[in-house]
């Protein structure tokens, strides 16, 4: 019985949150890695682009709520995602047309493109703050919990409760669906194959008649879908605050590089690596050991490896270690 309690405890406080957070990071990391692989620059506007898409979802949610449109027990935000994605792609294409395409055609070095993306970051942040302001917003409605701790305790008679938030299940399910469609697209369709070819060797791809404009367009469309969905899922699970989204860029970058930048599978797994490391290393195991160890051995301290203040620092340390020992990432990305 104690062992089951211990497992439920871990499931409730580490595994479920880590899976959720990991899914959100994974979507962002695939976004970073696609831009890096195909357009060949580190996009420092990542976090703010995710924030931009989410902003529309938030505003539309408020609008739909005011006219009484809802999805019942599901959050209204899910209904707004398609429109938000459309706006996001529209914005990205405008930015690409007026900013990035010039440097791409000129074949500028990646560093220059990265600096340009810093400019885009400033502009995007300004637009977001001017439209919606910097404050914290919650836009989750519908059913909050699928399973409450007290219900679970009554059902099973265990000491530990298991809480499943609806946002956790929505995040995981939506991520699996989106990512599997994307991988199917990249691997099985002709356009997807041409994108991978373009990413591997631009000159050869052009030689075999792949239209670079089309590849860039599709890349931005996929990027827009991933950025918006990732952003909305994060916002539903926590809350929407522009500054937090900007900061999220950092673990997302870490996930993309850990997974091997330019490699979408790596980025997907990298998101979970970062999330699990952050949560497992900062969780206080006192109660867990209380269940599995005999009473005489029970620990007095919290048995916490690192305080939660250093959550971000963990992902960055992993990144530094990976860069030192396997610079191309755990799952082999582009060569540095």
């Amino acid at each position: 019985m104690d062992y089951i309690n211990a497992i439920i405890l871990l499931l409730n406080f580490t595994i479920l949150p880590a899976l959720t957070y990991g899914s959100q990071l994974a979507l962002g990391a695939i976004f970073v890695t696609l831009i890096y692989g195909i357009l060949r620059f580190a996009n420092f506007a990542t976090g703010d682009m995710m924030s931009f898409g989410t902003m529309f979802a938030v505003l539309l949610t408020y609008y739909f709520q005011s006219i009484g449109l809802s999805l019942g027990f599901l959050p209204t935000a899910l209904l707004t995602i398609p429109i938000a994605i459309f706006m996001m792609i529209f914005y990205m294409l405008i930015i690409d047309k007026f900013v990035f395409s010039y440097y791409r055609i000129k074949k500028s070095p990646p560093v220059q493109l990265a600096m340009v993306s810093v400019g885009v970051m400033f502009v995007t942040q300004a637009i977001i703050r001017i439209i919606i302001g910097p404050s914290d917003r919650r836009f989750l409605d519908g059913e909050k919990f699928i399973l409450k701790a007290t219900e679970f305790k009554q059902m099973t008679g265990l000491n530990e409760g298991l809480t499943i938030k609806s946002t956790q299940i929505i995040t995981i399910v939506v991520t699996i669906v989106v990512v599997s469609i994307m991988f199917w697209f990249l691997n099985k369709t002709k356009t997807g194959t041409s994108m991978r070819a373009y990413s591997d060797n631009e000159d050869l791809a052009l030689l075999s008649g792949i239209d670079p404009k089309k590849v860039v367009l599709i890349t931005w469309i996929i990027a827009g879908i991933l950025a918006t969905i990732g952003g909305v899922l994060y916002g539903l699970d926590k809350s929407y605050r522009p500054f937090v989204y900007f900061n999220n860029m950092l673990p997302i970058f870490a996930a993309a590089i850990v997974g091997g930048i330019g490699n979408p599978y790596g980025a997907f797994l990298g998101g979970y690596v970062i999330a699990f490391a952050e949560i497992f290393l900062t969780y206080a195991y006192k109660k867990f050991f209380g269940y599995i160890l005999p009473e005489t051995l029970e620990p007095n301290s919290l048995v916490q490896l690192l305080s939660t203040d250093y959550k971000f620092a963990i992902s960055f340390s992993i990144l530094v270690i990976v860069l030192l020992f396997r610079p191309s990432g755990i799952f082999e990305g582009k060569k540095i």
Partner: protein
Amino acid sequence: MRNYANVIAAYSVMLILIILVGIFQSWSIALSILNYCLISAVMTIGANIQWGYAGLINFGIMGYTALGGLAVVLVSVAPVPEAWSVGGLNLLICLFLIFSMVISIRIIIKKYKLLKNKYSIIAGIIILGIILIRFISAPAIEAIEAIDPAKTGFLGGLGLPVLFSWIVGGLFAAGVAFVIGKIALGLRADYLAIATLLIAEIIVSIIKHEDWLSRGVKNVIGLKRPAPYEIDLQNSEWFINLVEKFNSSKLNLVNSVSDYQDILKQLVIDASSVYVKLCFTGLFLIVVIALLILTQRALYSPWGRKMRAIRDNEISAAAMGKNIVKEHLLIFVLGSAIVGLAGAMMVTNDGLFTPGSYRPMRYTFVIWVMVIVGGTGNNFGAILGGFVVWFLWVQAAPISLFLINLFTAHLPETNDLKVHLINSAPYFRFLIIGIGLLFIMRYRPQGILPEKIVKN
């Protein structure tokens, strides 16, 4: 002289702008903008050494700035003897432990290269060390933070003069940059950018959360100053006489004695804040000019030519026998040290250390915009960039408020759009800076004052 015509013109425009602020807003505001411009200029000199001379992209400026600020606290604040007596010994033991960990790992890496399970031994040392350190430091940290947490709750500093901390700030940043450079400099440019950005975030989060060291987010206020305090000036005879002399024509028009006293008092209060800021301006100007002379000499020395050669073509420079790794590390450390110095100057100017305020937007990206807008590889350009961008950063809100009012003049005061725009006026600074950066990158990628190669 002719070569410097555009430099002189650009700086004159900047000076006129600041004087205009002095005339139309107030001299106190103008001087505080000027002081921050000078601090930004020091930061841009540091970033320009790395990016302009050697082509190294360092997005970790925030981290070095924070380290410089930490140096001011650790050097100039008076020590807290109670804290030292309860926890000082344990923390010194921990310091010694960290030191011996680093040395033993170095020995293993250098001497036992062929050992098979080298990495597992290193990992073992690190894990064992962390557990030991936590075990020793936890009670000490708790005890230190319990001592009068509203006022101290930390070890305090050394109680030395604050100017000394500027040098220490530079040394701190240099030391950390050396370690980071050893780790990260082998990476390709954009990876280096990301890695330094993340490492800076780690540095700031350590400063933010280790309360025993820096008081963390509880901030350290009332730091020492290299300039007199306003309140002392207001009470000193010579200063009041000076103000009276300066404003004698204005004061002579006043008839009644009580009015005269009131006006004089107000003038003394205004003048004291201007005087203090002038003292800082003088100090900062000395630093900026000294750095400018040094960097200018370095740029046109054989060493500067070598750096440019490495920047423009690494492979051929390596073929000529230049040690690229060593030179990159040197320039990384030098640039970071200057940024650390700027961080210390900034905290001294503010008189308070607020770890919570170190954010990558303000302390990394804005500095980068300064370097790129001003002109990479040109010291005068970098300094000018610091001035221009900081001026815009501060004055963007009033300018955009003016523009909003101009364009929405036909709308009534209660119009929702107008109210919303006026409330979000502070955020237009991001828009102005961002669009400015994009335009410069597109139409004048070499910056306002481009790099000049002097051939002799």
